[in-house]
C-alpha cells in the first residue's frame, strides 16, 4: 500500500474505516494512562500542583507546530505531486491545528496566572504561539473565502509554505524582541533537566496527543471527502434542473414547477 494507492478516495475511505476504531482505541488507552500518570506525578517543589498543567500544555504546544509541518508536507503534495488527497489533508488539518494552538494558549495562560500572577505575559513563547494562532486563523479564512476547493487548495498551499519559512523567522524575532524589552525574570522550565517523574508522563501524553491528532485528522479527512461528494452531487442535480428547465423554455411559465418537481 503506497501513497499513490491512497489517491483513490474510495480506497482511502475503505482503509480508514478499518483502522480508525483501532486508532481511537489506542488514543483512549494512552490518554487514560497518561492522565493517570500525570495525576500521580509528584508536585514540584517550587510550583506545587500547578506543574501538572504542563502535561496538557506541552503536548498541545508541540502539536501546534507539528500540525503546521503536516500541512506543509500536504502543501507540497498539492503543488508538486498533485496528490488528490493532499488538499483534503491540508484543509482538514487547519482547524485541528488551530484548536491545539488555542488550547496551548489557554493552558499557558492558566499556568501563568499562579506562576507570574497574570493571565497574559508578553513572554516570548506565549507571544509566538499567539502569532501562530493568528496565522492558523488567516489560513482558515483563506480556505473559507473561496467556494471552489481546488482553487482554494493551491492558494492555501502557497500560504502554508510561506508560513513554514516565516514561522522560524517570526519565532526568532519575537525571542530577540522579548530579551530586548524584558529582563529575564520569567520562570523557565529546565527542558532537558526535567526529572524522570515528570518526563515519563509527559512523553506518554505527547504520544497520546499525537495519536489523537492522527485520529481526528483521518476522521476530518473522511468528512471532507464525503462533504465534497455531497457538494458535487448537489451541483450535478442543480445543473440537471437548470438544463431541463432550459429545454422546456418557451413553456417555462407553465411547466417550471413541474420540471423541478420531476428532477
Amino acid at each position, binding site marked *: 500500500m503506497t501513497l499513490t494507492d491512497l489517491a483513490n478516495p474510495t480506497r482511502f475511505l475503505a482503509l480508514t474505516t478499518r483502522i480508525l476504531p483501532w486508532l481511537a482505541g489506542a488514543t483512549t488507552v494512552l490518554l487514560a494512562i497518561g492522565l493517570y500518570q500525570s495525576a500521580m506525578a509528584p508536585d514540584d517543589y517550587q510550583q506545587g500542583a500547578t506543574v501538572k498543567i504542563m502535561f496538557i500544555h506541552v503536548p498541545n504546544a508541540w502539536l501546534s507546530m507539528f500540525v503546521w509541518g503536516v500541512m506543509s508536507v500536504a502543501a507540497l503534495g498539492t503543488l508538486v505531486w498533485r496528490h488528490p488527497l493532499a488538499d483534503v489533508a491540508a484543509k482538514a488539518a487547519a482547524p485541528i491545528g488551530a484548536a491545539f494552538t488555542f488550547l496551548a494558549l489557554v493552558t499557558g495562560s492558566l499556568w501563568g496566572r499562579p506562576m507570574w500572577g497574570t493571565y497574559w505575559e508578553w513572554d516570548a513563547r506565549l507571544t509566538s504561539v499567539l502569532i501562530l494562532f493568528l496565522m492558523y486563523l488567516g489560513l482558515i*479564512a483563506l480556505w473559507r473565502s473561496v467556494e471552489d476547493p481546488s482553487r482554494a487548495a493551491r492558494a492555501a498551499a502557497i500560504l502554508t509554505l510561506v508560513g513554514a519559512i516565516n514561522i522560524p523567522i517570526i519565532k526568532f*524575532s519575537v525571542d530577540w*524582541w522579548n530579551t530586548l524589552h524584558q529582563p529575564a525574570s520569567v520562570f523557565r522550565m529546565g527542558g532537558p533537566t526535567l526529572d524522570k517523574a515528570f518526563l515519563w508522563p509527559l512523553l506518554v501524553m505527547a504520544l497520546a496527543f499525537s495519536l489523537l491528532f492522527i485520529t481526528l485528522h483521518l476522521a476530518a479527512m473522511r468528512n471532507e471527502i464525503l462533504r465534497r461528494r455531497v457538494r458535487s452531487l448537489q451541483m450535478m442535480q442543480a445543473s440537471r434542473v437548470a438544463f431541463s428547465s432550459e429545454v422546456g423554455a418557451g413553456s417555462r411559465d407553465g411547466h417550471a414547477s413541474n420540471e423541478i418537481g420531476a428532477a
Partner: protein
Amino acid sequence: MSALAALIRRDVRIALRVGGGALIGVLFFLTVTVLMPFAVGPDLALLSRLGPAILWLGALLASLLTLDRLFTADHEDGSLDLIVMSRTPLELACAAKALAHWLAAGLPLIIATPALGLLLNLDGAATFAVALTLLAGTPALTFTGMIGAALAVTMHRGGLLLAVLVLPLSIPVLIFGVAASQAAISGPLSFGTPFSILCALSLISFVIGPFAAAASLRHGLD
C-alpha cells in the same frame, strides 16, 4: 531586461497618475500620525519616546493599504494575463512590479517621514534614523505583502483578507525596524545589529516574495 524596465516605468506612471492612488498612502500615513496624539495625549516627551513606533506602525499600515492595487487593476483590465503569458519569467515580472510599487508608494512614505517626525517632536538624528530604517525595511513589507496581494487577486477578494494574511508575516520587520530606530536614538544596543537583521529580512523577502507570488498567480489565474 528592457521588458522589465518598461514594466517598472509603466507601473510607476500608472500609480502616480490621476486615479493611480499611490500617493493616498502618504495621506493615510499623515492622518494616522496626526491621530496618535489624540489617543495618547499631547505630551511631547511621551510622543518623542513613542515616535519611532508610531511612524513605523503608520508606514506599515499605509503600505498595507496600497498593496491592494499591486495586481487588482492589472487583473481587471486583463494586462495581468498578458504578463503571466509573456516570455519574461513571471518571477522577474513580479519582482519588477513590486519594485515599481515600492518606488511609487513606499518611497514617498520615507520622504514624508521628516515632516511627520517634526510633529512627533523627534530631533534630526532620530528622524534620520527612522527614515533610514524605513528605507531598509519597507521593501520587505512590499515584497512579502506581494504574496498576499497575489493570493487575494486570484481569490477575487481584496482588503481584509489581504490584511489578515500579510500582517502576521510583517511582525519581524516591525520588531527590527523599531528596535533599530530606538537603538539609534537612545541605545543601549548598537544600531548595527538590528539594522543588519532588518536588511537581511529585506533580502530574504526579495527571494521568497517573487517566487511565492508568481506561483500563486500561475496556479490561481485561469
